């Protein structure tokens, strides 16, 4: 914990004039977490006399643009918090600095390896993981009761959830679930089902086997019979949350951090909600969205910027942040083992955190790093949509993607 902090202190005394300023950017955390970040900034400035630390928070869809604009203008922020796919995409565009040579090897050992892997590409580390959040399953008990389902005995497998979803739709006319399969999320569904993306040498995409086709075909059939709403494919989780909040969705796969928001958005639905851990399938993994701090190309002092990223993601800071959110998890080895994450009260929000904690050891950021990610991901998205919306068969869609990927890997 102490080392990154000391490192930056040393660097600052060696290289900075007193008037200098560092800047870090977070993704969609203000104003909710102002009470965490404002003291964090003050703590940093007290420990590094004469150095100003500027905190900027941006919406997720604006942050990449901000970095690229900052690089173009010669004044990018020193550390930027992004998710895995954003970091990999920017790294491939040459917009981020690899951190391997900017920090001591011991620093990287502080983090969980699986979390660090989500930000590594072609042997280089482009982000220091900050916090992770895995998924849980939430059920609207009012809807379950209408469908004759027992809220106290929820399904423990994805196929079980699908069966419940069908029953809900058949018996109530309300959508049972809204699968998270928009954009490239089906790659995560494959991994959770234990189906490989690449061959053992990671040289060829192999996700067009009969088992892969069968999994996709299952969702094609569900859509064809209107068991999930069409706008899930274009609006993803936003559509699912909107429906659940309106009391128009029986089951939602959701991050535990959304429970406090649900409490405010529709208290009646929140009160009717029970939660369960996300089922662990044959893949023995579950998607865990992970955010990390990256250092943009063109920062004034790369080592100082990397040290700032290390300090922001230190044991103490990660632990304090996840305690503050109550629903996210640290990604350093030490902080992740804090007993806080295995204890709690009986409110839905507490139970959601505990449900997530139960599967956190299976949590991986299942983003698939590939070269030319934007072109490959677009081919994936277009073909999956074509299959789901009945424009081509599941097999033809997966064959087409695999051919394109293999020609460009």
């Amino acid at each position, binding site marked *: 914990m102490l080392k990154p902090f000391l490192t930056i202190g040393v660097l600052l005394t060696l290289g900075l004039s007193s008037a200098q300023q560092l800047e870090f950017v977070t993704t*969609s955390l*203000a*104003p909710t977490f102002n009470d965490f970040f404002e003291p964090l900034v003050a703590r940093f400035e007290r420990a590094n006399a004469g150095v100003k630390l500027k905190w900027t*928070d*941006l*919406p997720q*869809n*604006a942050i990449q643009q901000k970095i690229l604009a900052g690089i173009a203008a010669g004044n990018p922020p020193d550390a930027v918090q992004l998710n895995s796919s954003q970091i990999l995409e920017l790294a*491939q*565009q*040459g917009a981020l600095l690899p951190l391997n040579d900017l920090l001591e090897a011991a620093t990287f050992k502080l983090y969980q390896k699986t979390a660090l892997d989500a930000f590594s590409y072609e042997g280089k580390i482009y982000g220091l993981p900050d916090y992770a959040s895995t998924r849980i399953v939430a059920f609207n008990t009012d809807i379950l009761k209408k469908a004759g389902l027992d809220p106290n005995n929820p399904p423990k497998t994805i196929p079980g959830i699908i069966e419940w979803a069908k029953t809900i739709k058949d018996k109530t006319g309300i*959508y049972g679930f809204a699968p998270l399969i928009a954009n490239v999320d089906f790659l995560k569904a494959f991994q959770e089902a234990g189906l490989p993306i690449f061959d053992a040498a990671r040289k060829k995409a192999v996700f067009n086997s009969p088992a892969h086709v069968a999994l996709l075909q299952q969702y094609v059939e569900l859509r064809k019979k*209107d068991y999930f*709403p*069409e*706008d899930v*494919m*274009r*609006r993803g989780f*936003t559509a699912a949350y*909107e*429906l659940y*909040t*309106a009391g*128009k969705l029986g089951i939602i796969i959701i991050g535990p951090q959304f429970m406090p928001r649900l409490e*405010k958005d529709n208290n009646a639905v929140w009160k009717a909600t029970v939660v369960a851990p996300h089922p662990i399938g044959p893949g023995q993994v579950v998607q865990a969205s992970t955010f990390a701090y990256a250092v943009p190309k063109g920062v004034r002092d790369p080592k100082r910027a990397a040290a700032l990223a290390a300090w922001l993601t230190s044991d103490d800071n990660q632990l304090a942040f996840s305690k503050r959110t109550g629903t996210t998890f640290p990604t350093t080895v030490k902080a992740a083992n804090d007993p806080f994450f295995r204890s709690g009260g009986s409110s839905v929000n507490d139970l959601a955190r505990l449900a997530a904690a139960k599967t956190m050891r299976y949590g991986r950021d299942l983003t698939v790093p590939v*070269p*030319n990610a934007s*072109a490959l991901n677009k081919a994936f998205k*277009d073909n999956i*949509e*074509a299959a789901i*919306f*009945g*424009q081509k068969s599941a097999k033809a869609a997966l064959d*087409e993607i695999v*051919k*394109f990927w*293999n*020609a*460009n890997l």
Partner: protein
Amino acid sequence: MKLFLRTPPLLSLVGFLATLPAFAIPLALTPVPDAYLGSAPASLLPPPQEARLSEAFLSLEGLALQAEGPQPELQWALRDLSREVQARFGTTLATEGSKLLRVGTLEHPELAQAARERGLTPDKPEGYALWVEEGGAAVVGFDALGAYRGAQTLRQLLTPQGFRFAQVRDWPAFGWRMAMIYLDKDSRAVNDVLVPLLAKLKYSHVLVMSDYVQWNSSRALWHPSGAPRAEAERVVRLIREHGMEPVPLLELLSHAQWLFYNPQTGRYDANKDLWADPEAPNSFAYDPLVPRVYEVVLPILSEVVEVFKPRYVHIGHDELTAQNRFPAKPEAVAVGLPRLFVDDTLRLYNHLKGLGVGTMIWHDVAFSEAYREQIAPALPKDIVVAYWNYSAAADYPLLGVVRGLGFGVLGSSWYNPGNPESMAQAALRYGANGVLQTRWSGYFGNATMYDGQAEQAVAYFNAASAFWNPPAPGAPPDDLAARYRQAWRVPPFTPIAGQLVDLGPAVTRRLADPDETQWIQKGPSTDLSALPSGVVRLGPYRFHVSGAVMLKGARAAASDLPQSVTLELGGVKARALAFLHTTGWIGSQRYERVGSYTLTYADGSKATLPLEYGRHLTSWLEPQVRTVVYEPVWRGRTQDGLEAGLNVLVWNNPKPDQPIQSLTLESSGAAANPTLVGLTLLERLPGAEAPR
């Protein structure tokens, strides 16, 4: 040892020699009279309902243009036909001649009789009859707009030999065939191309994104990249004089950032008292409970109506919860999203109705599964709903739901392959009022229609076809991107002489890859063997194709290739150079500099053209065209069915009077490695310079 075996000796030698500074590979040049020759499009777009074409032609010699009626649409038709002839041949048609090309309507007894005799009488609004035959040609509209639409078909029958013989009877499937454009600082340069193009494609309405127009009533919000009000007025005239109706789109309630732009700070921090979510880091929606919202919005809405004189105004109202909380303030939460949405919509609807104008909205909030039961019944049924879904799909049942609730509905598509086609077919099935081809290129993104997001404009073509004639069978033609480029740079029908360069002695990779040693070393299933070789015509250009001069790149399979190659051209002069080129692999970053071409002239001077990925060249496996800087000339498939394509970049030689000694190809070593497949030197620059 393995590396040596994988690299044929000749190629190794070329690679080695080409890297020596003084060494240049001498190449053979073949002069030809028609190195470039424009041609008529291979098919009519949109495809007519009924058409018979033959391989005979009506010569332009002695052919005169004549309007048979007073309607302005007939004069617009003559204008467009004259411009087509002028662009293709550099000449104009006379007003008197031995043969006539007549444009009129069924109101003209003689033309009506002539149409009847040929069994072509049009019987639907915007329908037309058209014939080209030995004695002359005629376009006869059911109405004046029909005559104008027919003239657009006739333009496409113009060939190097004259007008192709044809008999056509045609009409649109929908009365509303709308395409979307933008008003911004680049509006004039771009919309002067796009609006005539939309007319040529027989669109009937144009949705004009108008958020950032510098209205008199919004002076406090003027964005420097917004279009002046005078430009809005000009574009409205331009649209109407091309036979279409403008529909302004002013995004209100949501996507309303334009209401919050502060010219003093350059940020979106104005009118903060109107923000729906005051704690949000960015502005997105306004709070309908704040009375001052309407003091700001309604005068702008009135001015929009004053400028456009439209039948409808589209007021947006989509994706309300996409960015921030809505509702956010406690008092708004108490009212709830459905009531806030309805109250705001009614306020705007009633204002527009008072001005004699109808209202149009997007569907996704009012008709969402979450809010439909509360919002839809509270809305007036004469609101037209634009249903959008940008994935190709076998069906769009929500079109039927909206229609079933008593609303007029338009099916709205975007540029994903198959999306406009499937949307038009569904719209027809559900009895929709029409169809809308959207474009989402950014509020200030007009320039990207030239370079950056041209694929969205290419989709105007297949959408227009699907909207006019949804049941027309078959996939869209594969030359749509080339046709779009021709809207910017019309190819002449007069040949341009030039010299074909045989790259054979400089080839580093063969196009066919039977044993994973050639092309990109992925074997015969992923090679370029489908490209015709020898002396071939690709699009309007001729090339001598012998293989590829592929340069070094970051991928292992390209690591043994030369970083640069110098081609000896022997002191030839050229006005322009046409490069048939690509990259072996996809670039990781658009506009990344991946290499250069450098001309060395006889006097020792040099000129260099940097090659930027996505702007000057692109991978052979990325056939989608995002720019008109280069020209798509060949589309094919690999053995295992992957779409492939090659493009031509024309370089306007900066020193056309200086003999060219050599051309040096250089790679910067990125993943996208420059690969030259053909080179032709031209005596003239083809087409007019496109605006930038």
